[in-house]
Protein backbone atom coordinates (compact mmCIF):
# COMPACT_ATOMS: atom_id res chain seq x y z
CA UNK A 1 0.00 0.00 0.00
CA UNK A 2 2.92 2.24 0.73
CA UNK A 3 4.27 4.45 -1.97
CA UNK A 4 7.97 4.42 -2.39
CA UNK A 5 10.16 7.27 -3.40
CA UNK A 6 13.84 6.94 -4.27
CA UNK A 7 15.99 9.90 -3.37
CA UNK A 8 19.41 9.76 -4.91
CA UNK A 9 21.80 12.05 -3.19
CA UNK A 10 25.44 12.88 -2.62
CA UNK A 11 27.51 10.86 -0.26
CA UNK A 12 27.50 12.92 2.90
CA UNK A 13 23.85 13.84 3.01
CA UNK A 14 22.77 10.62 4.57
CA UNK A 15 21.89 11.91 7.99
CA UNK A 16 20.44 15.09 6.60
CA UNK A 17 17.92 13.27 4.49
CA UNK A 18 17.31 10.62 7.08
CA UNK A 19 16.04 13.48 9.27
CA UNK A 20 14.19 15.26 6.49
CA UNK A 21 12.48 12.08 5.37
CA UNK A 22 10.87 11.69 8.75
CA UNK A 23 9.67 15.21 8.62
CA UNK A 24 8.29 14.80 5.14
CA UNK A 25 6.65 11.48 5.90
CA UNK A 26 4.79 13.09 8.77
CA UNK A 27 3.82 16.01 6.58
CA UNK A 28 2.57 13.78 3.79
CA UNK A 29 0.63 11.59 6.18
CA UNK A 30 -0.98 14.67 7.62
CA UNK A 31 -1.86 16.35 4.36
CA UNK A 32 -2.57 13.37 2.11
CA UNK A 33 -3.27 10.65 4.64
CA UNK A 34 -0.82 8.38 2.85
CA UNK A 35 2.25 6.48 4.04
CA UNK A 36 5.39 6.88 2.02
CA UNK A 37 8.63 5.04 2.27
CA UNK A 38 11.63 6.97 1.17
CA UNK A 39 14.64 5.05 -0.02
CA UNK A 40 17.99 6.71 0.11
CA UNK A 41 20.95 6.25 -2.14
CA UNK A 42 24.20 8.01 -1.35
CA UNK A 43 27.44 8.16 -3.23
CA UNK A 44 29.55 10.72 -5.02
CA UNK A 45 27.05 12.76 -6.97
CA UNK A 46 28.83 12.22 -10.28
CA UNK A 47 28.62 8.52 -9.80
CA UNK A 48 24.99 8.87 -8.88
CA UNK A 49 24.27 10.83 -12.03
CA UNK A 50 25.97 8.15 -14.01
CA UNK A 51 23.97 5.46 -12.29
CA UNK A 52 20.76 7.30 -13.09
CA UNK A 53 21.72 7.62 -16.71
CA UNK A 54 22.46 3.92 -16.77
CA UNK A 55 19.10 3.14 -15.31
CA UNK A 56 19.02 3.71 -11.59
CA UNK A 57 15.33 4.56 -11.23
CA UNK A 58 15.60 7.61 -9.02
CA UNK A 59 12.54 9.79 -8.54
CA UNK A 60 14.37 12.79 -7.19
CA UNK A 61 17.95 13.86 -7.12
CA UNK A 62 19.40 16.03 -4.39
CA UNK A 63 22.94 16.78 -5.45
CA UNK A 64 25.77 19.05 -4.52
CA UNK A 65 26.68 19.88 -8.09
CA UNK A 66 24.65 21.54 -10.79
CA UNK A 67 26.64 19.83 -13.54
CA UNK A 68 25.64 16.43 -12.33
CA UNK A 69 21.99 17.26 -12.93
CA UNK A 70 22.80 18.84 -16.27
CA UNK A 71 24.43 15.64 -17.37
CA UNK A 72 21.27 13.70 -16.61
CA UNK A 73 19.58 15.89 -19.12
CA UNK A 74 22.37 15.77 -21.66
CA UNK A 75 23.24 12.12 -21.58
CA UNK A 76 20.08 10.56 -20.37
CA UNK A 77 17.46 13.04 -21.49
CA UNK A 78 15.52 12.11 -18.42
CA UNK A 79 14.58 15.65 -17.43
CA UNK A 80 14.18 18.96 -19.27
CA UNK A 81 16.97 21.39 -19.85
CA UNK A 82 15.33 24.10 -17.82
CA UNK A 83 15.10 22.00 -14.69
CA UNK A 84 16.77 24.73 -12.64
CA UNK A 85 13.87 27.08 -13.23
CA UNK A 86 11.26 24.69 -11.87
CA UNK A 87 11.90 25.53 -8.23
CA UNK A 88 12.86 28.76 -6.49
CA UNK A 89 16.45 29.93 -6.06
CA UNK A 90 17.78 28.03 -9.03
CA UNK A 91 16.20 24.89 -7.61
CA UNK A 92 18.60 25.09 -4.74
CA UNK A 93 16.73 25.00 -1.41
CA UNK A 94 19.90 25.46 0.58
CA UNK A 95 23.42 26.51 -0.14
CA UNK A 96 26.77 26.74 1.43
CA UNK A 97 30.18 28.11 0.77
CA UNK A 98 33.78 27.15 1.19
CA UNK A 99 35.46 27.69 4.54
CA UNK A 100 38.65 26.76 6.36
CA UNK A 101 39.11 24.58 9.36
CA UNK A 102 42.22 25.27 11.39
CA UNK A 103 43.60 23.75 14.52
CA UNK A 104 42.89 25.10 17.99
CA UNK A 105 43.67 28.78 18.50
CA UNK A 106 44.58 29.14 14.84
CA UNK A 107 48.34 28.72 15.40
CA UNK A 108 49.25 29.71 11.84
CA UNK A 109 47.04 32.80 11.98
CA UNK A 110 44.93 31.98 8.96
CA UNK A 111 42.46 34.73 8.10
CA UNK A 112 41.92 34.74 4.39
CA UNK A 113 42.89 33.08 1.12
CA UNK A 114 46.22 34.82 0.88
CA UNK A 115 47.35 33.14 4.09
CA UNK A 116 47.01 29.77 2.44
CA UNK A 117 49.87 30.23 0.03
CA UNK A 118 52.42 30.87 2.73
CA UNK A 119 55.37 28.51 2.80
CA UNK A 120 54.70 27.34 6.34
CA UNK A 121 51.13 26.31 5.72
CA UNK A 122 50.11 22.80 4.68
CA UNK A 123 46.68 22.30 3.18
CA UNK A 124 44.37 19.33 2.98
CA UNK A 125 41.59 19.21 0.43
CA UNK A 126 39.99 16.61 -1.81
CA UNK A 127 41.13 16.02 -5.34
CA UNK A 128 39.41 18.41 -7.76
CA UNK A 129 39.47 15.64 -10.31
CA UNK A 130 37.27 13.39 -8.28
CA UNK A 131 35.41 15.61 -5.93
CA UNK A 132 32.90 18.40 -6.51
CA UNK A 133 33.77 19.75 -3.12
CA UNK A 134 37.31 20.45 -4.28
CA UNK A 135 36.14 22.05 -7.49
CA UNK A 136 34.18 24.51 -5.38
CA UNK A 137 37.28 25.27 -3.38
CA UNK A 138 39.16 25.86 -6.57
CA UNK A 139 36.44 28.16 -7.91
CA UNK A 140 36.28 30.00 -4.59
CA UNK A 141 40.01 30.61 -4.69
CA UNK A 142 39.70 31.69 -8.29
CA UNK A 143 36.93 34.06 -7.34
CA UNK A 144 39.06 35.51 -4.60
CA UNK A 145 41.99 35.93 -6.98
CA UNK A 146 39.86 37.61 -9.59
CA UNK A 147 38.44 39.85 -6.91
CA UNK A 148 41.90 40.75 -5.69
CA UNK A 149 44.07 40.83 -8.80
CA UNK A 150 41.46 42.00 -11.28
CA UNK A 151 42.47 41.22 -14.82
CA UNK A 152 46.05 40.26 -14.12
CA UNK A 153 45.80 36.70 -15.39
CA UNK A 154 49.39 35.88 -14.52
CA UNK A 155 49.01 36.77 -10.87
CA UNK A 156 45.76 34.87 -10.71
CA UNK A 157 47.47 31.80 -12.10
CA UNK A 158 50.43 32.23 -9.80
CA UNK A 159 48.18 32.45 -6.83
CA UNK A 160 46.17 29.37 -7.75
CA UNK A 161 49.16 27.33 -8.58
CA UNK A 162 50.95 28.11 -5.34
CA UNK A 163 47.75 27.36 -3.47
CA UNK A 164 47.51 23.94 -5.11
CA UNK A 165 51.20 23.48 -4.47
CA UNK A 166 50.61 23.85 -0.74
CA UNK A 167 48.22 20.92 -0.64
CA UNK A 168 49.75 18.01 1.15
CA UNK A 169 47.07 15.40 0.56
CA UNK A 170 44.44 15.23 -2.13
CA UNK A 171 41.92 12.73 -0.89
CA UNK A 172 39.48 11.29 -3.36
CA UNK A 173 36.48 12.66 -1.50
CA UNK A 174 35.47 15.36 0.97
CA UNK A 175 35.08 13.06 3.91
CA UNK A 176 38.38 11.43 3.19
CA UNK A 177 40.03 14.82 3.42
CA UNK A 178 38.34 15.48 6.72
CA UNK A 179 39.55 12.17 8.09
CA UNK A 180 43.04 12.93 6.93
CA UNK A 181 42.97 16.28 8.66
CA UNK A 182 41.33 15.17 11.87
CA UNK A 183 42.20 11.55 12.41
CA UNK A 184 45.63 11.54 10.88
CA UNK A 185 46.51 15.02 12.08
CA UNK A 186 47.94 16.06 8.75
CA UNK A 187 48.07 19.68 7.51
CA UNK A 188 47.26 23.06 9.01
CA UNK A 189 44.14 23.94 7.07
CA UNK A 190 41.31 21.84 5.76
CA UNK A 191 39.43 23.37 2.86
CA UNK A 192 35.90 22.15 2.48
CA UNK A 193 32.24 23.17 2.73
CA UNK A 194 31.30 25.53 5.46
CA UNK A 195 28.63 23.03 6.49
CA UNK A 196 31.28 20.33 6.93
CA UNK A 197 33.54 22.62 8.88
CA UNK A 198 30.76 23.66 11.21
CA UNK A 199 29.74 20.03 11.67
CA UNK A 200 33.22 19.19 12.81
CA UNK A 201 33.33 21.98 15.29
CA UNK A 202 29.91 20.95 16.57
CA UNK A 203 31.22 17.49 17.11
CA UNK A 204 34.75 18.01 18.27
CA UNK A 205 34.42 21.48 19.78
CA UNK A 206 37.48 23.16 21.10
CA UNK A 207 40.17 21.41 19.15
CA UNK A 208 39.33 23.18 15.94
CA UNK A 209 38.31 26.57 14.75
CA UNK A 210 36.41 27.79 11.74
CA UNK A 211 37.72 30.53 9.52
CA UNK A 212 35.34 31.93 6.94
CA UNK A 213 37.09 33.93 4.25
CA UNK A 214 35.70 37.29 3.24
CA UNK A 215 35.14 36.27 -0.33
CA UNK A 216 33.97 32.85 -1.35
CA UNK A 217 31.94 30.83 -3.75
CA UNK A 218 28.23 30.30 -3.75
CA UNK A 219 27.87 26.54 -3.55
CA UNK A 220 24.37 25.59 -4.56
CA UNK A 221 22.79 22.25 -3.73
CA UNK A 222 20.47 21.66 -6.64
CA UNK A 223 17.48 19.39 -6.43
CA UNK A 224 15.02 18.23 -9.03
CA UNK A 225 12.82 15.35 -9.96
CA UNK A 226 13.74 12.95 -12.72
CA UNK A 227 10.68 13.29 -14.91
CA UNK A 228 10.94 10.06 -16.84
CA UNK A 229 11.48 7.80 -13.88
CA UNK A 230 9.12 9.59 -11.55
CA UNK A 231 6.47 9.24 -14.19
CA UNK A 232 7.25 5.57 -14.72
CA UNK A 233 7.04 5.05 -11.01
CA UNK A 234 3.85 7.06 -10.77
CA UNK A 235 5.51 9.36 -8.32
CA UNK A 236 5.52 12.68 -10.11
CA UNK A 237 3.28 14.41 -7.57
CA UNK A 238 5.08 12.93 -4.65
CA UNK A 239 8.48 13.83 -6.02
CA UNK A 240 7.46 17.43 -6.60
CA UNK A 241 5.97 17.68 -3.15
CA UNK A 242 9.08 16.12 -1.59
CA UNK A 243 11.28 18.77 -3.11
CA UNK A 244 8.89 21.69 -2.65
CA UNK A 245 8.55 20.89 1.00
CA UNK A 246 12.29 21.52 1.34
CA UNK A 247 11.47 25.20 1.02
CA UNK A 248 9.05 25.16 3.92
CA UNK A 249 10.09 26.94 7.08
CA UNK A 250 10.11 23.70 9.00
CA UNK A 251 12.46 22.05 6.54
CA UNK A 252 14.65 25.09 6.23
CA UNK A 253 15.14 25.07 9.95
CA UNK A 254 16.11 21.45 9.79
CA UNK A 255 18.58 22.17 7.01
CA UNK A 256 20.16 25.00 8.90
CA UNK A 257 20.53 22.58 11.77
CA UNK A 258 22.86 20.65 9.48
CA UNK A 259 24.85 23.84 9.02
CA UNK A 260 23.63 24.74 5.57
CA UNK A 261 22.71 28.31 4.69
CA UNK A 262 19.06 28.69 3.75
CA UNK A 263 16.82 31.22 2.05
CA UNK A 264 13.87 31.41 4.43
CA UNK A 265 14.10 34.81 6.08
CA UNK A 266 12.74 33.74 9.45
CA UNK A 267 15.17 30.92 9.81
CA UNK A 268 17.97 33.05 8.45
CA UNK A 269 17.46 35.54 11.22
CA UNK A 270 17.44 32.83 13.83
CA UNK A 271 20.86 31.53 12.84
CA UNK A 272 22.55 34.73 11.73
CA UNK A 273 25.27 34.39 14.33
CA UNK A 274 26.39 31.08 12.94
CA UNK A 275 26.73 32.27 9.37
CA UNK A 276 28.78 35.44 9.03
CA UNK A 277 28.22 37.71 6.07
CA UNK A 278 30.42 36.75 3.19
CA UNK A 279 30.70 37.98 -0.34
CA UNK A 280 29.40 34.98 -2.25
CA UNK A 281 30.27 34.86 -5.90
CA UNK A 282 28.02 32.75 -8.13
CA UNK A 283 29.46 30.68 -10.93
CA UNK A 284 28.39 33.20 -13.51
CA UNK A 285 30.69 35.81 -11.98
CA UNK A 286 33.67 33.52 -11.79
CA UNK A 287 33.56 31.43 -14.93
CA UNK A 288 30.52 32.51 -16.88
CA UNK A 289 28.70 29.22 -16.58
CA UNK A 290 29.16 25.73 -15.25
CA UNK A 291 29.68 24.41 -18.71
CA UNK A 292 32.38 26.92 -19.29
CA UNK A 293 33.97 26.25 -15.93
CA UNK A 294 34.13 22.53 -16.58
CA UNK A 295 35.61 23.01 -20.00
CA UNK A 296 38.24 25.59 -19.33
CA UNK A 297 39.21 24.54 -15.85
CA UNK A 298 38.48 20.95 -15.05
CA UNK A 299 38.54 19.01 -18.30
CA UNK A 300 41.61 16.99 -19.10
CA UNK A 301 44.38 19.30 -20.12
CA UNK A 302 42.41 22.27 -18.79
CA UNK A 303 43.52 25.06 -16.54
CA UNK A 304 43.65 22.89 -13.46
CA UNK A 305 45.94 20.39 -15.09
CA UNK A 306 48.18 23.15 -16.32
CA UNK A 307 48.37 24.80 -12.94
CA UNK A 308 49.12 21.59 -11.13
CA UNK A 309 51.85 20.70 -13.51
CA UNK A 310 53.87 23.79 -12.65
Amino acid sequence: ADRELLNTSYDIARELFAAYNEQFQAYWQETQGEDVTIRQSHAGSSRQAQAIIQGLKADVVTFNQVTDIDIIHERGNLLPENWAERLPNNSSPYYSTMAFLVRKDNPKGIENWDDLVREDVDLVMPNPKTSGNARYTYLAALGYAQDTFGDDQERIDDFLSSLLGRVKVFDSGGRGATTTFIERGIGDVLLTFESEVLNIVDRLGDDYQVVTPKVSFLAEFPVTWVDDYAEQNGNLDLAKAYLEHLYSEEAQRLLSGFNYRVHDETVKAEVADRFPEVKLLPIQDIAGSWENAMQTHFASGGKLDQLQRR
Partner: protein
Amino acid sequence: MAESARHQVGSKPLIKWTLIGLALSITLVLLVIPLVLIFSQAFSAGWGTLMANLGDEYTLHAIGLTLFVALVTVPLNLVFGTALAWAVTRFQFPGRKLLITLIDIPFAISPVVAGLLYLLLYGRNGWVGSWLGQYDLQLMFAWPGIVMVTVFVTSPFVARELIPLMQQQGSQEEEAGVVLGASGWRVFRHITLPNIKWALIYGVVLTNARAVGEFGAVSVVSGNIRGETNTLPLHVELLYQDYNIVGAFASASLLAAIAILTLAVKGFVEWHQARERDQQPEHRTER
Protein backbone atom coordinates in the same frame (compact mmCIF):
# COMPACT_ATOMS: atom_id res chain seq x y z
CA MET B 1 61.17 -37.35 8.07
CA ALA B 2 63.91 -36.63 10.49
CA GLU B 3 65.08 -33.47 8.86
CA SER B 4 67.85 -32.76 11.27
CA ALA B 5 69.73 -35.84 10.18
CA ARG B 6 69.91 -34.58 6.62
CA HIS B 7 72.29 -31.95 5.44
CA GLN B 8 70.37 -29.17 3.81
CA VAL B 9 71.19 -25.75 2.57
CA GLY B 10 70.42 -23.17 5.24
CA SER B 11 70.18 -25.63 8.09
CA LYS B 12 72.85 -23.89 10.12
CA PRO B 13 71.08 -22.63 13.24
CA LEU B 14 72.30 -19.07 12.84
CA ILE B 15 71.00 -18.73 9.30
CA LYS B 16 67.88 -20.67 10.07
CA TRP B 17 66.80 -18.59 13.03
CA THR B 18 67.73 -15.33 11.35
CA LEU B 19 65.51 -16.17 8.42
CA ILE B 20 62.70 -17.38 10.63
CA GLY B 21 62.98 -14.22 12.69
CA LEU B 22 62.80 -12.09 9.58
CA ALA B 23 59.81 -13.98 8.24
CA LEU B 24 57.99 -13.74 11.52
CA SER B 25 58.62 -10.00 11.70
CA ILE B 26 57.33 -9.46 8.20
CA THR B 27 54.25 -11.47 8.92
CA LEU B 28 53.70 -9.59 12.11
CA VAL B 29 54.21 -6.13 10.66
CA LEU B 30 52.60 -6.61 7.29
CA LEU B 31 49.80 -9.00 8.12
CA VAL B 32 49.05 -9.59 11.77
CA ILE B 33 49.12 -6.07 13.15
CA PRO B 34 46.79 -4.66 10.49
CA LEU B 35 44.35 -7.36 11.44
CA VAL B 36 44.74 -6.53 15.10
CA LEU B 37 44.16 -2.88 14.29
CA ILE B 38 40.82 -3.61 12.69
CA PHE B 39 39.56 -5.37 15.77
CA SER B 40 41.07 -2.93 18.20
CA GLN B 41 39.36 -0.05 16.37
CA ALA B 42 36.10 -1.96 16.34
CA PHE B 43 36.32 -2.54 20.06
CA SER B 44 37.75 0.88 20.83
CA ALA B 45 34.39 2.23 21.95
CA GLY B 46 33.51 -0.85 23.88
CA TRP B 47 31.50 -3.96 23.33
CA GLY B 48 28.17 -2.21 23.56
CA THR B 49 28.92 0.26 20.80
CA LEU B 50 30.21 -2.54 18.65
CA MET B 51 27.00 -4.50 19.10
CA ALA B 52 24.92 -1.40 18.50
CA ASN B 53 26.79 -0.76 15.30
CA LEU B 54 26.46 -4.29 14.11
CA GLY B 55 22.84 -4.42 15.12
CA ASP B 56 22.00 -1.33 13.10
CA GLU B 57 19.21 -2.01 10.61
CA TYR B 58 21.27 -1.04 7.61
CA THR B 59 24.30 -2.98 8.74
CA LEU B 60 22.16 -6.05 9.19
CA HIS B 61 20.76 -5.60 5.74
CA ALA B 62 24.25 -5.17 4.29
CA ILE B 63 25.33 -8.38 5.99
CA GLY B 64 22.29 -10.15 4.62
CA LEU B 65 22.83 -8.85 1.11
CA THR B 66 26.50 -9.77 1.17
CA LEU B 67 25.75 -13.28 2.27
CA PHE B 68 23.00 -13.54 -0.32
CA VAL B 69 25.35 -12.44 -3.10
CA ALA B 70 27.91 -14.97 -1.98
CA LEU B 71 25.22 -17.60 -1.80
CA VAL B 72 24.21 -17.02 -5.41
CA THR B 73 27.72 -16.48 -6.74
CA VAL B 74 29.34 -19.51 -5.27
CA PRO B 75 27.03 -22.14 -6.80
CA LEU B 76 27.15 -20.39 -10.17
CA ASN B 77 30.91 -20.41 -10.23
CA LEU B 78 30.97 -23.89 -8.82
CA VAL B 79 28.96 -25.19 -11.73
CA PHE B 80 30.86 -23.15 -14.24
CA GLY B 81 34.28 -23.93 -12.82
CA THR B 82 33.58 -27.64 -12.67
CA ALA B 83 32.13 -27.71 -16.17
CA LEU B 84 35.06 -25.80 -17.58
CA ALA B 85 37.61 -27.95 -15.81
CA TRP B 86 35.83 -31.06 -17.00
CA ALA B 87 35.71 -29.85 -20.58
CA VAL B 88 39.34 -28.78 -20.83
CA THR B 89 40.87 -31.66 -18.93
CA ARG B 90 38.81 -34.51 -20.25
CA PHE B 91 38.50 -33.62 -23.91
CA GLN B 92 40.60 -32.38 -26.74
CA PHE B 93 38.99 -29.79 -28.95
CA PRO B 94 40.12 -26.82 -30.96
CA GLY B 95 40.35 -23.69 -28.86
CA ARG B 96 40.97 -25.58 -25.65
CA LYS B 97 44.14 -23.66 -24.81
CA LEU B 98 42.41 -20.39 -25.56
CA LEU B 99 39.61 -21.28 -23.19
CA ILE B 100 42.10 -21.95 -20.43
CA THR B 101 43.70 -18.56 -21.07
CA LEU B 102 40.41 -16.69 -21.18
CA ILE B 103 39.53 -17.80 -17.72
CA ASP B 104 42.36 -15.68 -16.34
CA ILE B 105 41.01 -12.42 -17.76
CA PRO B 106 39.30 -11.30 -14.54
CA PHE B 107 42.67 -11.41 -12.80
CA ALA B 108 44.09 -8.92 -15.26
CA ILE B 109 41.23 -6.46 -15.10
CA SER B 110 40.95 -3.84 -12.43
CA PRO B 111 37.67 -4.35 -10.55
CA VAL B 112 36.54 -0.80 -11.23
CA VAL B 113 36.96 -1.38 -14.93
CA ALA B 114 35.11 -4.64 -14.61
CA GLY B 115 32.21 -2.80 -13.04
CA LEU B 116 32.34 -0.23 -15.80
CA LEU B 117 32.23 -2.94 -18.45
CA TYR B 118 29.05 -4.34 -17.00
CA LEU B 119 27.54 -0.94 -16.67
CA LEU B 120 28.30 -0.15 -20.28
CA LEU B 121 26.74 -3.36 -21.46
CA TYR B 122 23.81 -3.86 -19.17
CA GLY B 123 23.08 -0.24 -18.27
CA ARG B 124 20.09 1.59 -19.72
CA ASN B 125 22.18 2.77 -22.67
CA GLY B 126 24.08 -0.44 -23.18
CA TRP B 127 22.85 -2.62 -25.96
CA VAL B 128 21.81 -5.50 -23.80
CA GLY B 129 20.51 -3.18 -21.13
CA SER B 130 18.37 -1.17 -23.52
CA TRP B 131 16.91 -4.34 -24.95
CA LEU B 132 16.12 -5.64 -21.50
CA GLY B 133 14.72 -2.22 -20.65
CA GLN B 134 11.98 -2.73 -23.19
CA TYR B 135 10.78 -5.61 -21.07
CA ASP B 136 11.20 -3.52 -17.97
CA LEU B 137 13.98 -5.71 -16.77
CA GLN B 138 16.71 -3.99 -14.88
CA LEU B 139 19.87 -5.74 -13.85
CA MET B 140 22.17 -2.93 -12.82
CA PHE B 141 21.61 -1.10 -9.54
CA ALA B 142 19.86 -4.11 -8.15
CA TRP B 143 21.08 -7.36 -6.72
CA PRO B 144 21.35 -9.12 -10.08
CA GLY B 145 23.95 -6.59 -11.15
CA ILE B 146 25.91 -7.07 -7.96
CA VAL B 147 25.79 -10.79 -8.41
CA MET B 148 26.88 -10.51 -12.03
CA VAL B 149 30.01 -8.50 -11.35
CA THR B 150 30.81 -10.65 -8.37
CA VAL B 151 30.51 -13.73 -10.53
CA PHE B 152 32.82 -12.08 -13.04
CA VAL B 153 35.43 -11.16 -10.51
CA THR B 154 35.41 -14.55 -8.81
CA SER B 155 35.00 -16.76 -11.84
CA PRO B 156 38.60 -18.01 -12.15
CA PHE B 157 38.95 -19.43 -8.67
CA VAL B 158 37.20 -22.78 -8.88
CA ALA B 159 38.44 -23.59 -12.36
CA ARG B 160 41.99 -22.62 -11.49
CA GLU B 161 41.98 -24.94 -8.52
CA LEU B 162 40.49 -27.84 -10.44
CA ILE B 163 42.31 -27.76 -13.75
CA PRO B 164 45.81 -28.64 -12.56
CA LEU B 165 44.48 -31.30 -10.23
CA MET B 166 42.26 -32.95 -12.81
CA GLN B 167 45.01 -32.75 -15.38
CA GLN B 168 47.34 -34.48 -13.03
CA GLN B 169 44.82 -37.14 -12.06
CA GLY B 170 44.07 -38.02 -15.65
CA SER B 171 40.89 -39.62 -16.87
CA GLN B 172 41.71 -43.26 -16.35
CA GLU B 173 39.46 -43.73 -13.39
CA GLU B 174 36.57 -42.23 -15.29
CA GLU B 175 37.32 -44.44 -18.27
CA ALA B 176 37.39 -47.42 -15.96
CA GLY B 177 33.99 -46.40 -14.69
CA VAL B 178 32.57 -46.12 -18.19
CA VAL B 179 33.97 -49.51 -19.17
CA LEU B 180 32.19 -50.93 -16.17
CA GLY B 181 28.98 -49.57 -17.61
CA ALA B 182 28.40 -46.58 -15.36
CA SER B 183 26.24 -43.75 -16.64
CA GLY B 184 27.67 -40.26 -17.08
CA TRP B 185 26.12 -38.98 -13.89
CA ARG B 186 27.27 -41.97 -11.93
CA VAL B 187 30.80 -41.56 -13.19
CA PHE B 188 30.81 -37.93 -12.16
CA ARG B 189 29.12 -38.44 -8.86
CA HIS B 190 30.99 -41.50 -7.66
CA ILE B 191 34.39 -41.20 -9.29
CA THR B 192 35.23 -37.64 -10.25
CA LEU B 193 33.58 -35.78 -7.44
CA PRO B 194 35.23 -37.63 -4.55
CA ASN B 195 38.60 -37.18 -6.21
CA ILE B 196 38.27 -33.44 -6.62
CA LYS B 197 36.34 -32.83 -3.47
CA TRP B 198 39.00 -30.98 -1.53
CA ALA B 199 40.12 -28.85 -4.41
CA LEU B 200 36.51 -27.98 -5.00
CA ILE B 201 36.00 -26.94 -1.41
CA TYR B 202 39.18 -24.95 -1.60
CA GLY B 203 37.97 -23.18 -4.72
CA VAL B 204 34.65 -22.47 -3.06
CA VAL B 205 36.36 -21.01 -0.03
CA LEU B 206 38.40 -18.66 -2.17
CA THR B 207 35.40 -17.72 -4.29
CA ASN B 208 33.42 -17.02 -1.20
CA ALA B 209 36.13 -14.88 0.35
CA ARG B 210 36.42 -12.80 -2.75
CA ALA B 211 32.66 -12.61 -3.27
CA VAL B 212 32.13 -11.34 0.23
CA GLY B 213 34.89 -8.78 0.02
CA GLU B 214 34.51 -7.36 -3.47
CA PHE B 215 34.38 -3.60 -3.40
CA GLY B 216 35.53 -1.90 -6.58
CA ALA B 217 33.35 -3.63 -9.11
CA VAL B 218 30.30 -3.76 -6.90
CA SER B 219 30.48 -0.10 -6.00
CA VAL B 220 30.14 0.80 -9.67
CA VAL B 221 26.98 -1.19 -10.32
CA SER B 222 25.36 -1.13 -6.93
CA GLY B 223 23.46 2.17 -6.93
CA ASN B 224 24.33 2.45 -3.26
CA ILE B 225 20.75 2.39 -2.07
CA ARG B 226 20.83 2.09 1.66
CA GLY B 227 19.17 -1.00 2.93
CA GLU B 228 18.80 -2.30 -0.58
CA THR B 229 21.94 -2.54 -2.66
CA ASN B 230 24.57 -1.75 -0.12
CA THR B 231 26.91 -4.66 0.47
CA LEU B 232 29.05 -4.91 3.54
CA PRO B 233 32.25 -3.51 1.98
CA LEU B 234 30.22 -0.59 0.57
CA HIS B 235 28.68 -0.15 3.95
CA VAL B 236 32.12 0.08 5.49
CA GLU B 237 32.98 2.87 3.13
CA LEU B 238 29.70 4.60 3.81
CA LEU B 239 30.18 4.51 7.55
CA TYR B 240 33.70 5.70 7.10
CA GLN B 241 32.39 8.65 5.10
CA ASP B 242 29.96 9.38 7.89
CA TYR B 243 32.77 9.75 10.42
CA ASN B 244 31.46 6.65 12.05
CA ILE B 245 34.94 5.19 12.34
CA VAL B 246 33.95 2.71 14.99
CA GLY B 247 31.00 1.57 12.95
CA ALA B 248 33.17 1.28 9.88
CA PHE B 249 35.70 -0.82 11.69
CA ALA B 250 32.95 -2.84 13.32
CA SER B 251 31.73 -3.86 9.89
CA ALA B 252 35.28 -4.22 8.70
CA SER B 253 35.99 -6.50 11.60
CA LEU B 254 33.07 -8.61 10.48
CA LEU B 255 34.67 -8.90 7.06
CA ALA B 256 37.99 -9.61 8.69
CA ALA B 257 36.32 -12.30 10.75
CA ILE B 258 34.98 -13.85 7.58
CA ALA B 259 38.50 -13.66 6.18
CA ILE B 260 39.88 -15.42 9.22
CA LEU B 261 37.19 -18.04 9.01
CA THR B 262 38.08 -18.52 5.37
CA LEU B 263 41.71 -18.97 6.25
CA ALA B 264 40.77 -21.44 8.92
CA VAL B 265 38.64 -23.49 6.55
CA LYS B 266 41.40 -23.33 4.00
CA GLY B 267 43.92 -24.45 6.55
CA PHE B 268 41.68 -27.33 7.46
CA VAL B 269 41.25 -28.35 3.84
CA GLU B 270 44.98 -28.23 3.25
CA TRP B 271 45.65 -30.22 6.34
CA HIS B 272 43.15 -32.79 5.16
CA GLN B 273 44.69 -32.97 1.73
CA ALA B 274 48.13 -33.37 3.17
CA ARG B 275 46.89 -36.10 5.43
CA GLU B 276 45.29 -37.94 2.56
CA ARG B 277 48.52 -37.64 0.64
CA ASP B 278 50.57 -38.92 3.54
CA GLN B 279 48.29 -41.84 4.04
CA GLN B 280 49.19 -43.21 0.67
CA PRO B 281 52.12 -45.43 1.47
CA GLU B 282 54.86 -45.30 -1.05
CA HIS B 283 55.04 -48.15 -3.49
CA ARG B 284 55.14 -51.32 -1.46
CA THR B 285 56.37 -54.49 -2.97
CA GLU B 286 54.71 -57.70 -2.19
CA ARG B 287 56.79 -60.73 -1.62
